[in-house]
């Protein structure tokens, strides 16, 4: 058996059924023995392969796998790997490499992929000896999916892929430095339980870590038992159903008024599986200023990294929640609940962008409640409108590029989600800037017969950059106007049915039409370029310094 066959065997044994990739010279020996039992989705750009693998993993909870050739192929993966790294998504990347005899000689399509991907992966390998390959692959598959999830890359030289391997080569992972089981945290958990019982204005903050621990129901159990209001980060949306009486909404730069104010007023913050990104905390030093902070994370390095924790707890958030629920007494907190419910919900007049997201929410309400809808976004204003106004009821129903904020994520992530969840409705909400960043994947969805529904909010500009220029750069608009194509014609050219909706009053009918289309479809919805995402906490300000409305002339 040659190295390339060993690769496919290892992947099959790990339960891998689908991979996203793009062939090329150095990886051809691997493609040559691609088994029929693994579905290969041919993307149109390697970045899309990494992002589709990421979308597949987020939607299904399973390992996402992408494959590319050496040099340009591998480097094109980079943005997608960084995206998976920042949002802790289990992705395995296989890259072809020039033969070991050529390594270091600047051969055709040779780049130092090991060096280039070191800082955007959880771990990476260059396999220089064939008999290391089975062990390395098993380690890579294991690392990506355990502890704090993340992308792992295996760089596979052409001659290693072609080398004959004798049977019985050692394939057991050897990871003496991989510390999954930490020291006992029960003393810290007891301290946390006592603090929770004593707090009068406690708040739960849920993040992306919870879905990987499958701990959503445990969050609700604790919240209901101790009557704790719950706020979420962008990555935590869907952990707690949006219509739950204890749920306050998303916190952060574009967070809900109630959620942001609750953070600033609470006397105890129990943060679960969050990493306190700057977009979440606002001014770090002024974040939750009155709160005793309990921070639970599976990754010890997250504790104290951005915000100092009074009670840091390293551990699986599900295990910690189970202990906390058994230790914390039942309690009602009518005053605190009345207080957080008294905060205003949202600012007044809504633009076309928000109206479109709300219309989508109405049109997909049943699907969303059943958990049969996966909503994918790109990055920018439309992303924040979705986060603010679309109600999520289940984990893994929002796929969005949180940490990296990578425009172009949406379409390939939707590909991954639809491939992984063929029975669910996958809707991509995107903007005209983002969609053009990976537009070529429209061909992939047609070729792979993926019935993805695209809602394009087109403001003919880079809306979020424009918003900042208007609000914080004295209206000095630079490099934000995008002359787009005729979108319905573009879609038609790819073989995708498309509609345009120019009157917001027609949105719901247009969305019904889009959603009832059998195959893929695109609804082009023009949006005035001046629309803003509000509320907004300016960079470097505390969370309660929210701008609720803005007109020209309001610049500071």
């Amino acid at each position, binding site marked *: 058996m040659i190295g390339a066959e060993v690769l496919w065997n290892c992947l099959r044994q790990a339960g891998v059924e689908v991979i996203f990739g793009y062939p090329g010279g150095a990886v051809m020996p691997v493609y040559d023995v691609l088994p029929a039992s693994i579905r290969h989705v041919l993307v149109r750009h390697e970045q899309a392969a990494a992002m589709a693998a990421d979308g597949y993993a987020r939607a299904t909870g399973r390992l996402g796998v992408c494959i590319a050739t050496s040099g340009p192929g591998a480097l094109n993966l980079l943005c997608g790997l960084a995206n998976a790294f920042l949002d802790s998504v289990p992705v395995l990347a296989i890259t072809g490499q020039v033969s070991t005899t050529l390594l270091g000689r600047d051969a055709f399509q040779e780049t130092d992929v*090991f*060096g280039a991907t*070191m*800082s955007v992966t*959880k*771990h990476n390998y*260059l396999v*220089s000896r064939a008999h290391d390959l089975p062990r390395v692959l098993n380690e890579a598959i294991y*690392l990506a999916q355990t502890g704090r999830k993340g992308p792992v890359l295996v760089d596979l030289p052409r001659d290693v892929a072609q080398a004959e391997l004798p049977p019985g080569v050692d394939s057991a992972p*050897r*990871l*003496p*430095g*991989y*510390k999954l089981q930490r020291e006992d945290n029960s003393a810290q958990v007891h301290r946390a339980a006592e603090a929770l019982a004593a707090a009068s204005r406690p708040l739960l903050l849920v993040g992306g870590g919870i879905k990987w621990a499958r701990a959503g129901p445990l969050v609700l159990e604790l919240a209901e038992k101790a009557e704790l209001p719950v706020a979420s980060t962008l990555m935590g949306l869907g952990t707690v159903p949006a219509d739950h009486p204890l749920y306050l909404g998303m916190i952060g730069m574009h967070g809900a008024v109630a959620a942001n104010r609750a953070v600033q007023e609470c006397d105890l913050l129990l943060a679960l599986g969050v990493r306190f990104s700057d977009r979440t905390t606002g001014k770090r030093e002024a974040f939750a200023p009155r709160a005793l902070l309990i921070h639970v994370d599976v*990754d*010890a*390095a997250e*504790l*104290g*990294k951005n915000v*100092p924790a009074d009670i840091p707890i390293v551990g699986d958030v599900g295990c910690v929640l189970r202990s906390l629920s058994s230790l914390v007494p039942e309690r009602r907190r009518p005053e605190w609940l009345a207080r957080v419910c008294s905060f205003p919900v949202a600012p007044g007049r809504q633009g076309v962008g928000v109206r479109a997201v709300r219309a989508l929410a109405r049109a997909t309400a049943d699907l969303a409640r059943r958990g049969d809808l996966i909503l994918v976004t790109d990055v920018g204003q439309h992303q924040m409108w979705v986060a603010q106004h679309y109600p999520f009821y289940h984990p893994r129903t929002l796929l969005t590029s949180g940490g990296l904020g990578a425009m172009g994520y949406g379409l390939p992530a939707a590909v991954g989600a639809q491939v992984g969840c063929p029975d669910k409705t996958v809707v991509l909400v995107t903007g005209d800037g983002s969609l053009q960043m990976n537009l070529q994947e429209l061909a992939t969805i047609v070729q792979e017969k993926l019935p993805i529904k695209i809602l394009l909010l087109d403001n003919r500009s880079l809306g979020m950059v424009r918003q900042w220029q208007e609000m914080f750069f004295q209206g000095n608009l630079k490099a934000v106007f995008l002359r787009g194509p005729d979108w319905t014609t573009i879609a038609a050219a790819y073989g995708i049915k498309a509609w345009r909706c120019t009157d917001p009053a027609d949105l719901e009918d247009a969305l019904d039409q889009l959603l009832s289309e059998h195959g893929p479809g695109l609804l082009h919805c023009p949006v005035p370029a001046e629309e803003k995402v509000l509320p907004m906490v300016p960079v470097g300000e505390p969370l309660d310094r929210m701008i609720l409305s803005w007109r020209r002339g309001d610049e500071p």
Partner: protein
Amino acid sequence: MRRIFSVLVENQPGVLARVAGLFARRRFNIESLAVGATQDPSFSCMTIVVDGDEGVLQQVQKHLDRLINVVRVSVLEESGAICRELALVRVNAAGTQRTSIIQVVNVFKGKIVDVAPGSLVVEITGDRDKISALLDLLGEFGIQELVRTGEIAIARGRQVVNEGGICIGQGAVRT
């Protein structure tokens, strides 16, 4: 604040790059880094001296520990450890100064390891206070070139830093 980390790592290609990359990316301030094989050739020991406040030093420890190839990170207190560094110093030595230099070096139990017209190479081993004291004195003669290894350290007494899950030399991993 200065802290000495003794870091047991797998002896694999790229480990040094991972550690160096971590320090560069997170803006940790590295004072010195010395690395060499242990009694088990599949593991190396890095002695890393870091400068920073308590919060930074804790982050250094956690982020080092998070690297997959890092087996164990131990903090060595200077009072509870033996710290050594080796320095080679090429110092100006005009005829009349030679004897004075040799006398100073002898006091510090250093060695003259090379003699050339107009200069001497001095080898000195010790903790950093001893080395900096000698360098101050040699500075009066004029230092032409200075090379240092960076500190290495080992715990005093019976405390074995790199034991526990790993039994070095017996091929066993993880308990």
